């Protein structure tokens, strides 16, 4: 039951893009085609799981015992950056099909604030390891959902006549606003 609540909360109520404002750059940049959106979403889910796990362990076994909480930011970003590189190399060697599908998105993820944001968020909420990873998966799914919906809308939007100044990013942002408005409807489910 609790797992269910986590997923509902992270995907709909606190959707990482539409309610928490994280990961907006890929949200706008990689939402032009559905296939690209899926690839990016998959890569983000994958990296969020691994990085949440690693940063959680770092926090618990290195930062907390030595009172180094203030180093959180720098430690997390270094861990995530190294991890993404490592995962890329690992996938290339071990799982080439997966690398072919997600590979080109992996380098984009180091500077994706969704990954770093989730790592910090679960620390601030004080979740346990398993719970953190569950939240990570759920947030990643929420990101993928938002990306996929947006890609679907933008594929249709491409065939519309827009005022020239609205074409591209502006209309995408307005669409995101409307989607976020729709997602606000889920807020009532939180209670």
């Amino acid at each position: 039951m609790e797992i269910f609540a986590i997923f509902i909360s992270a995907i709909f109520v606190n959707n990482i893009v539409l309610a928490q404002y994280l990961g907006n750059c890929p949200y706008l940049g990689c939402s032009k085609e559905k296939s690209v959106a899926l690839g990016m979403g998959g890569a983000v889910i994958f990296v969020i799981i691994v990085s949440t796990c690693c940063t959680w362990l770092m926090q618990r076994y290195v930062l907390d015992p030595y009172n180094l909480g203030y180093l959180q930011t720098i430690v997390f970003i270094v861990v995530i950056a190294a991890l993404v590189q490592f995962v890329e190399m690992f996938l290339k060697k071990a799982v080439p099909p997966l690398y072919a599908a997600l590979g080109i998105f992996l380098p984009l993820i180091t500077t994706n604030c969704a990954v770093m944001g989730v790592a910090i968020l679960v620390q601030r909420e004080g979740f346990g390891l398993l719970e953190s990873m569950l939240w990570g998966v759920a947030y990643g799914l929420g990101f993928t959902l938002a990306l996929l919906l947006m890609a679907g809308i933008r594929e249709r939007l491409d065939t519309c006549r827009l005022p020239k100044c609205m074409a591209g990013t502006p209309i995408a942002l307005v669409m995101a606003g409307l989607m976020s408005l729709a997602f606000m409807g889920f807020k009532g489910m939180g209670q």
Partner: protein
Amino acid sequence: MTVMREFTKGLWKELPPFRLVLGLCPTLAVTNSADNGLGMGLAVIFVLTLSNMLISMVRSIIPKKVRIACFIVIAASLVVAVELLMQAYAYPLYQQLGIFVPLIVVNCIILGRAEAFAAKNGVAASVADGLGMGLGFTLSLTFLGSLREIWGNGTWFGHAVMWEGFEPLRIMVQAPGAFICLGLILAGMNLINVWQARRKGRDPQPLTQGCGACQACHMNHEA
């Protein structure tokens, strides 16, 4: 003279969030009031100027292959410094901005400017570039924050500015308002751009749109 140009380009010609569509997450997230926008902007000025300065100082001794990692570590150290400073002197603001203070490190402006400018230019020019870009970012955030605060709350920097009986549009200070406001501002920038170009009799240059403007991804590919 060139230093002056590097400084001023960040104020209009390459205004970070509105012209180069960079650093959207903080732009959207913290602009529910003018205060927060200003605070976030100041933090970014600090980090951006110093990171530009440090990177342009050490640019010749960093091996090309690990430069991105070095840039990230430099930016992260500065962000930690900002975090500590804010905790000491501006704790309410620190709490308001929340998770977005540590997230300055993944703001594409920082890495983007480091790679695109500081790694290629001298210290003075880099500092000017950082200051200009940072100031442009601050002004944009404050502008967006003011807009949203005035419409959504009827206040500006916490002071009531709207008339008696003004019904605030709550949506403006929430997530949808952020997206829609920014979208409309970008559209406005496009309009101004086209109009300016037409007045000068040139072909309207399309704005660098979206993700493409931020070179952060591209950089990682090379790294």
